[in-house]
């Protein structure tokens, strides 16, 4: 992928926080990329919604021939993670040898260096690691949202922030 400095600035805060796209009409939760129209009900009213970042690894592959920006990381594991909120997210799974990966494992997201752009620009984003925390210690997404509004506002420009491409 090639990204110009102008595009880089438009991308805004990169994907430092894991979120999903919630349709405010039919409440469907979509994966975390730009979504202009809900594929389920056709609504244009979608907002970013922070998710807890914990879930189950439901499928995975091991990439031996990476795209340019991932050269040097191969072989690496890319998984489909079913988040506890019920949305599927594709992401690298790290900290585990490809041969040891098991479908059904509990995983949680963690901020990592994702890849190197072709001009040496570094991209950070969410990767997943095995979740060793006992589930009972974790707060529910609702609790997390209540307790950390300031932090959420600091990392997101606003919540919900205007969609890119909207008139402003």
């Amino acid at each position, binding site marked *: 992928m090639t990204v110009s400095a102008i595009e880089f600035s438009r991308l805004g805060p990169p994907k430092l926080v894991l979120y999903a796209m919630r349709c405010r009409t039919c409440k469907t939760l979509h994966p975390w990329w730009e979504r202009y129209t809900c594929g389920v009900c056709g609504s244009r009213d979608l907002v970013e919604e922070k998710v807890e970042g914990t879930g189950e690894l439901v499928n995975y592959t091991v990439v031996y021939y990476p795209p340019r920006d991932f050269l040097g990381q191969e072989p690496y594991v890319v998984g489909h993670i079913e988040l506890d909120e019920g949305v*599927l997210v594709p992401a690298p799974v790290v900290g585990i040898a490809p041969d040891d990966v098991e479908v059904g494992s509990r995983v949680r997201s963690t901020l990592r260096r994702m890849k190197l752009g072709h001009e040496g620009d570094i991209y950070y984003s969410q990767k997943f690691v095995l979740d060793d925390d006992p589930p009972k210690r974790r707060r529910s997404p609702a609790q997390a949202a209540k307790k950390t509004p300031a932090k959420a506002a600091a990392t997101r420009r606003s919540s919900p922030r205007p969609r890119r491409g909207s008139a402003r």
Partner: protein
Amino acid sequence: MRVGVLGIGKTPHKIQHDKSLRDLIVDAGRLAMDDAGVEARAVQAYYLGNAGCTGFCFENSVALMGADHLGLVPSPAVRVEAACGTGAWALHLGCVAILSGLYDTVLVMGAEKMNDLATVEGTSIIAQAADSKEEYFSGLTFPSGVALTMRKYMQVYGRSEEDLAHVSVKNHHYGARNPYAHLRFECTVDEVMRSAKVADPLKLYEVCPMTDAASAMVLCREEILRDQPERPQVYVTATSMGSGTWYAASDTLDDAFALLAKPAEKAYAMAGIGPTDVDVAEIYNSFAIQEPLGIESLGFAERGEGWRGALDGSTWIDGEVGVNLSGGLLCKGHPLGATGTSQAVDLVEQLRGTAPEGIQRKDAEIGMSACRGGPGAVAAIHVYQRLEGEA
């Protein structure tokens, strides 16, 4: 509907360091026009399917380039792009143009020049057919996206990697007999299993190569071909397109099935035939798993059973339906924009009875092509029929 196939032409599928994109375009275009007995100035419109010239060749308006070099000027020319469904879309637009009554004779073509670049560059360009800025940000590639589908298929239907390896064995059996194929060797289940891992569980012999090729057809109004009874009477009798999700993550097995099944249902109705009538089919298989998925979508097998024909013979040359007797994309390679037209040209050869020895299905009368593109985004079904002696 009936659209006459007046002429066909194709280049070999292989790495062609001595050929540029324009060389391939000119080769295929001249072959098709010569086969049709049509002068360039009689071609009223030109639809060129090309998926990646801006990345692979650093050229863009290549239909205009092709029109000039083929002598089609001043007829209109346009480049068509729809990921791996590009060539099939050019064919669709050519059919629609004829059916509209606006044109009598058009040239449809697919052409792709992929091997001026290394695999890592090619993989990155191909990834642009998906959301390369967001979804593929996570290190996904097309092979790894399909590998996830393959693992899901194995999980849901309880199939092993060995079961699915039979698909590659069948394709390579025929690819070895197709002089136009890129990979011309036979292989065993064991060899498929031992081939290098590309994206687990996908292995090298289950992945198509990057290929340079072009293929073309001259299409005409039904009456024009009907008035030339000395020519092979092959017609396109259905053209049916569809779309699905642009995201691999939301491409469930049900979605992958529906992507081709919906337009296939329309195509059967359009041609007035059913799955059991089809003699030969070319089914998109840039990755081996896509062949059983396509077989199931077209109604040739129950869901979860599409791989079995490669084992029990029902999708071999003398089975119920001969699937990918050309060797499929696994052996022909996948020249993105030329794949849809290559499927069409190979099926027309089958119906004309001019396919190479060893891959010609006896008395083939009805052919069907299924092409797909993007993670699960493009679907294209065409039906071809030999209709000799009909009024």
